[in-house]
């Protein structure tokens, strides 16, 4: 288990760029776009998985290389 002191140290060590991020409207909007993009990617993954994953994965056999 981590002690409180360790937790605090970790928080203090947080990179600058991460702490700088403050919630604002523009960012919230970006966040929404981000999740729309991600949803679209998840839908596209559905399409990829229409192919028989089991057959594909089982057949993916290479010879050992270097």
């Amino acid at each position, binding site marked *: 288990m981590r002690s409180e002191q360790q937790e605090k140290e*970790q*928080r203090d*060590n*947080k*990179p600058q*760029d*991460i702490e700088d991020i403050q919630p604002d409207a523009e960012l919230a909007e970006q966040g929404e776009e*981000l999740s729309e*993009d*991600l949803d*679209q*990617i*998840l839908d*596209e*993954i*559905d*399409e*990829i*998985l*229409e*192919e028989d*994953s*089991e057959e*594909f*994965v*089982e*057949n*993916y*056999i*290479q*010879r*050992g*290389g*270097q």
Partner: protein
Amino acid sequence: MDRRIYGLENEYGIICTPERRGGKALSIQNAVMYLFREIISGRMYPDVFLENGARFYQDIGCHPEYATPECDNVIELLTHDKAGERIIERLSTTAEKKMRFDGFFGKISVFKNNTDTPGNTYGCHENYLMDRRVSFRQLASQLIPFFVTRQVFTGAGKAIRTDRGKYVISQRAQHIREEISIATTTARGIINTRDEPHADREKYRRLHVIVGDSNMSEFATFLKVGTTAIVLRMIEDNFIRQRLALRNSVKAIQEISTDTTCSRNIELENGKRLTAVELQWQYFECAKHYFEQAESDSITDQVMERWEYTLKCLEVNPLLLDRELDWVIKKKLIETYVASRNLKWDSNDVLMLDLQYHNIRREGETKKTGLYYKLEQKDQVERMVTDEQVDKAMHLPPETTRAKFRGRFVKLANERKILCGVNWSYIQLYEPYQKLFLSTDPLKSEYEEASRMIYSI
């Protein structure tokens, strides 16, 4: 060394599946033949140097392998590594068309990863030109702890088939059996002792690194090669004083790989226990100290900045690096998909996602393109080079190394159908008389006699 030559070799995985259900699949051997058909134009073996100075050939185990031309900075190397992916993507599209013409309706998928389903491995090899004077013993002992621990940012990640959702940081770590070894196909070592400098042997050694994963992420490749180059420079200048030797390096590389929290302690020879990130901090602090006197440049400064940022994030929470590091990007993507579709971790779909992350196809039908590139198109991953830079590197060699000379020659030889032999350190004309041009200094871009010959043809 102030200026250093870098090279990256990637062995790709390949499979050809029928485009329609019930169709015929092609063997790997035949798929690779189709892949090379356009580029070898009448030659006997699938082994060619390209006009950008790179080598593209069929390696052990039937893997198409792309070796970048000699580069003397890390950004250029990254650009040429990506250019290799694009060249193979183009060749696989052409190959599919040819196959269709011959009556095979197949889809070629090419993967930039390091393991197949049953657990065979193929590599990504980094090459660093080094000063021959450094003692190998010192080199190995100071590099091993670095190589064991750098996987926390270089690892490409891998989902393992168990119901508990096991995921490891590095694809390659589980295939490392020795500390030091010359073998590349059996007992692979953390340090590989192959030493073919393709250059003046008295002056140079080539450090051939086989312990790393293939990276899709530009950030990860940049950091992998950039930090290693800094550590090598410090070793050459005899600057590292810390005793970082590990009690059992082979065990450590595997233990670190299986801990995605990056918080596991590893035992050092002196009895101390440190995490992989803490060990990396030691190298980083040493480098910071080193650059108080040694000369830096803008790319090295970038490496230092990103190295620090990465270690800070890894300490807080590795998931913060979900735009930067392959193992984190892929882990997050798989976890998100598994949660949203209520999948089980031991399903084939999870293994399929893991594999498809490494699919190098970027253009074309949605279901054919790789997951890394889907993320890139939606600006979900950090980029270090532009598409324009990569497109250019598909055709043009680096300007400042001997690859420039080779590239120019290969282009000319292809255009004029000149009979010749090309290799890393020489060009040989077969006709009208056997003339050999050596290029034993890879840091040199101009070879006068050979240039005159090229222009006289």
